[in-house]
């Protein structure tokens, strides 16, 4: 299985639906800021609006992190509009909904299920250079959590800014004191 970490996003041009309008998006639009590509199987399904609504509720926090959200399904931008017209949850979305009916993006990120013409629930965090820094892929019925995704974006940004000279802190009350280890080679 191909490892996608540090994969550079390839060129693409797709139509999209955003705040009532149709727009065109290319790989260049994903650069200069952090991006999340959020694949989901199809419009007009039950779990998807829940996930996309959750993401919409956290959208402002993503923007505060200089991160744009791009949802992606294999529907056309016309279907996205129809869904927004029919669903209050989708109507509230202000991030860009990419239309990938030819499967260009889903193939590029390895989430296309060709026999069904749908994408797995893949989430890809890209840095401002358009490189994948973190990702997860769920089977169709397994939902994701926007709050956890936001934490991952913050962590990815942090590592990019501070390198690896920090450790995540996970405090567990009641842990034993760790035995001392001395390593002062070259320090005295």
């Amino acid at each position: 299985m191909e490892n996608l970490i540090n994969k550079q996003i390839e060129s693409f041009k797709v139509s999209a639906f955003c705040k009532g309008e149709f727009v065109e998006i290319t790989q260049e639009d994903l650069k200069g800021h952090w991006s999340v590509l959020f694949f989901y199987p199809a419009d007009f399904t039950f779990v998807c609006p829940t996930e996309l609504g959750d993401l919409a509720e956290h959208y402002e926090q993503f923007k505060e992190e200089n991160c744009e959200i791009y949802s992606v399904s294999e529907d056309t931008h016309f279907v996205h509009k129809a869904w927004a017209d029919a669903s209050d949850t989708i109507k509230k979305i202000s991030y860009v909904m990419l239309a990938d009916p030819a499967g260009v993006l889903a193939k590029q990120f390895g989430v296309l299920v060709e026999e069904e013409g749908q994408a797995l629930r893949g989430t890809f965090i890209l840095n401002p250079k358009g490189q994948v820094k973190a990702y997860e892929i769920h089977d169709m019925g397994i939902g994701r959590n926007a709050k956890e995704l936001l934490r991952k974006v913050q962590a990815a940004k942090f590592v990019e800014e501070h390198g690896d000279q920090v450790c995540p802190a996970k405090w567990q009350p009641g842990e034993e004191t760790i035995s001392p280890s001395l390593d002062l080679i070259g320090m005295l």
Partner: protein
Amino acid sequence: MVDIEKISSRSELITKELEEQLHTILKKLTDEVCLVCVIDLADKASIEMAELVRHMVGLSETLSCHFYEKAEAEINFPELDSSMLPVTALYKEDSYTGIAFHGVTGGKEMNSFVLALYNVAGAGQEIDKHIQKKLHKLSHKIEMKIFVSLSCHHCAQQVITCQKMAAESEMIEAKMIDARLYPHLAEEYHIERIPMTIINEKEVLLGVKTIDQMYQIIKAYPK
């Protein structure tokens, strides 16, 4: 003062192998330094640290130690923060060096503890003469709180850097704080990554910095 005989002179944290390593390093100490420990006799971490200090003092000819409980320390050592016990501070010629450890110096922090002793009581680590001169001229008080985890080697490096600066300047205080032991502080300061250094309760730094980088930051305080 706590009766020293209440504290075991053998620490379970110091193995035979570690004892041999420590003995070699502590032999390099030339000046007398007193380790003042403020402890709570009912607290496991306090007893662990007290035993570790006694054990180490027993390996050296120039180190000594005294143990105090909180009430007595608040009167006699107001410069120490007795709200986070145990605290172990280095004193030289009856003066506080500005170097303190809140918690047990287990794990990677044994490195910072030993180097703090070496920097105060021994020849000390080499430092760029230019920076050293600037540190000696520092005219305003700087307090650095370095929040750490005992398993994080980056943390020990940051503690070493800050405490080396404290060893060079009377104006600098550098306190290692094991965030695991003080969960209310981890919450108060939103500590999710370590090492996290807080300067004068204002500037928050993450990760490891060099002495030069730290000096560039602290020279601006107070504005």
